[in-house]
């Protein structure tokens, strides 16, 4: 698959601080890519460089083979939505949406109508931004960004200024909109749930580099680094020992792990929902004491302490269908080999 947008070797420094240390990224046509990472990881800087709002110190940005690295924003053909939307406060909804349209009056009118209908904004086109709800403002910003039918849509934390319920709702709308229009989209977010649910591809960033690029499933289930595993979702990292013969030992018990390649001390990666309580026979099992149960709505999160190694604490999610356990109970726990990963034992 050839890249629609190709970013190569992008470096950006602010004084002595390296914001981006040689970024390579490829986005296919029609793809929805999320740049995910903690604040300060450089994801917004990368987006702004792609937008031409910030100049890179080295590297190139290409769209369909055309080098746009040094073009001004106006010649790069994209639409952008900022976190705070940056709507023109003194222009009403229709004027905001039509701001970039330079066609004749009738054509412009028609395009605005079309966008109002598309974004479900009909009826409020005479209102001013300050009279709109957060969700409406966001949709206006989106409509304005799409008005010129750009080849690329850039979203800078577009949902983070909204409250939780509206955010989930707009997330779904954004996904549907992307499916309907098929526009290549790059979104910056620090919200992993948002990234996992929206993106075709997630690029996880940390300290100015890309840690992993993959589908949401790959990112979640097969994280490429301890950082990704830690940043996306919850996980347990109990210390394990990799024997000479390649077998992995957790608290003296052999645990089969697929594709184990490390030696000596390591960390076992297991998600709270992957650890099984009372596992089917044939699975390697360890006895643990239930210390605490936390009710989280759809799941209960149990805190377990291994009997053979009292300093190892595991968090395990119990669904509604899982066997009932109570604090103080002794339970067998199992580790399904296909869900386990090993990481080098380094301080996080």
């Amino acid at each position, binding site marked *: 698959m050839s890249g629609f947008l190709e970013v190569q070797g992008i470096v950006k420094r602010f004084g002595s601080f390296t914001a981006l240390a040689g970024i390579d990224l490829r986005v296919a046509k029609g793809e929805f890519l999320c740049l995910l990472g903690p604040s300060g990881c450089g994801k917004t800087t990368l987006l702004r460089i792609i937008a031409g709002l910030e100049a890179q110190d080295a590297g190139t940005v290409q769209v369909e083979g055309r080098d746009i690295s040094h073009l001004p924003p*106006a010649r790069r053909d994209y639409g952008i939505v900022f976190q705070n939307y940056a709507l*023109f*406060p003194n222009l009403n909804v229709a004027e905001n949406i039509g*701001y970039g349209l330079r066609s004749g009056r009738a054509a412009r009118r028609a395009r605005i109508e079309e966008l109002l209908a598309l974004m479900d904004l009909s009826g409020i086109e005479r209102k001013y931004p300050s009279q709109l709800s957060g969700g409406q403002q966001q949709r206006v910003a989106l409509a304005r960004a799409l008005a010129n039918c750009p080849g690329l849509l850039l979203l800078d934390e577009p949902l983070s200024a909204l409250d939780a319920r509206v955010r989930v709702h707009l997330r779904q709308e954004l996904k549907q909109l992307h499916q309907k229009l098929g526009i290549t989209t790059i979104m910056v977010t620090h919200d992993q749930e948002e990234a996992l649910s929206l993106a075709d591809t997630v690029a996880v960033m940390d300290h100015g580099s890309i840690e992993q690029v993959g589908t949401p499933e790959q990112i979640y289930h097969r994280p490429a680094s301890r950082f990704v595993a830690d940043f996306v979702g919850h996980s347990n990292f109990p210390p394990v020992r990799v024997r000479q013969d390649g077998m992995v030992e957790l608290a003296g018990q052999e645990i089969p792990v697929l594709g184990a390649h490390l030696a000596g001390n390591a960390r076992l990666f297991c998600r709270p929902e992957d650890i099984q309580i009372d596992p089917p026979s044939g699975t390697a099992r360890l006895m643990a004491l239930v210390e605490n149960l936390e009710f989280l709505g759809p799941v209960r999160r149990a805190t377990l302490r291994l009997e053979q190694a009292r300093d190892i604490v595991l968090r395990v999610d119990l669904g509604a269908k899982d066997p009932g356990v109570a604090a103080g109970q002794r339970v067998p726990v199992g580790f399904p080999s296909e869900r386990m990963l090993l990481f080098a034992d380094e301080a996080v």
Partner: protein
Amino acid sequence: MRLGQGRSILTADERLAQFMAMGMAGLLLLFLAWPLGEILVKALQGREGQFIGLRNLRELLTEPRLLSAAWNSFYLAVLSTALVVPAALVFAFALAQSRMPFKPVFKVIALSPLLTPSLMPAISLVYLFGNQGALKAWLHGVPIYGPLGIVLGECFYTFPYALLVLLTALSISDARLHEAAEVLGANRYRRFMTVTVPTIRYGLTSACLIVFTLVVTDFGVPIVVGGQTNVLAMEAYKQVLGQQNFQKGAAVGLVLLLPAVLSFAAERWLARGRGGTFSGSSVAYSAKPSALRDGLLWTLCSAVSVFLLALIGTAVVASFIKLWPYNMQLSLAHYDFANVDGGGWLAFRNSLKLGAYTAAVGCAVIFAGAYLAEKTPAPKPVAALIQSLALMPMAVPGLVLGLGYVFCFNRPGNPLHKLYGTMAILVISTVVHFYTTGHMAIMTSLRQIDGEVESVARSLQRPWWTTCRRVTLPITLPALLDVARFLFVSATTTVSCVIFLYTPDTVLASVAVLNMDDAGDTASAAAMASLIVATSLTVTLALNGLGWLLNRRAQAWRKPLTA
């Protein structure tokens, strides 16, 4: 096509913005930095233009007349500061943190000196306490001509400046801090000392510096009621206009620049890292009623107001009286300037012109400078140059700026010599003189607009002037009206800068006041001063009205911004 790394090709409109920004920086260099540089050069020259190093300055220090003038300037400024700042603090406290009745009326009265030329309080003082003064007996033989008159006049003239600074300092006081202190059991006194005082410490210092500098550099008041008391500002004026000794005038000008530059530097230094105090989430403090506090404050504010009103009112009333204090009949005779020198109605018309041009040109130039530096991709050094040059006029007394203009543009070799003696140079110098205040107001307004608005507009492939016209200008309009009002009023009331630059054809009303008073036509001077006050008041009311109308029209979108 590739340029150097880290740089982007600009669109045509952005390149135009770059050229305009460079042009703007060039204008500021030409009309601000150059004249000031000339002062430096001149101060190091002898009468024949030869280089004599620091001899002018050394002579200054050995001439007893100048030394005593410097000492007078200093102690009168200290005295005035010591009187004005506490009074202004009480007044500001009453306006910001009390439930005193008639607050808006008090505020208008307190700011009214801004509408008057600085000579006006001095003229009123002469009418009240002068040789034929109505209240001369109150002084028990102490003459009003001299230190007493200067201090009283300067107090009137500087009061609103101190008040505005302190009022701002007090209004940013966060209500939640007061509430937290109250919940923690602090009494009124402790709350005042631990919450109010720390928040205004900066405002207090800066008010002191402003008042001190204004007094040291003002010569309007001393020239009318100074009597035998010589001050530095008058000395510069006399050296240049009286004795044509430009070099010594420049040296005195340099000395006058000193307190202004020092206090400006001190203010900048104090202001560093203070951004956090002006948090947008602060909750405005509103005081609980207290009869004792409010009554006390009301009395004090009334006393100050009576003082201020007396110094405006006396001159106005006197201008309508046939021959104060012998013939107290009402008369319009003093408004017929035909029989007195000074320029009469021509001066008044010129002042109106100067006010209008200064407001129009000043708004355009100041907005352009701030906009180009802040909102367009102007080259960083150019933007920084504009920003720092724009702050300079604040530190330059009008008198010194005026001297610089004389030295710079009165030199026959200067290609811009033609400007000398025209209305244009008066407009330019006045715009430059009041540039900083306007620039800061526009800047504040521009910075309230989300920076990403420009980014979005660029991504929508619109040139910056479209965004400027459709978005930025409408949002900045109220601030621009404010700046226009400020420039007009300042242009009609100022004397210090233009005194060196007017010609018989371009004589101004404020200068006429000075000259008439000098010639002994005090009543005509009072009449001219009253005309200036009436004009600035009218323009202020008109522009405020216009602002109110605009605000009402824009209410639909502006409302939540102010909420």
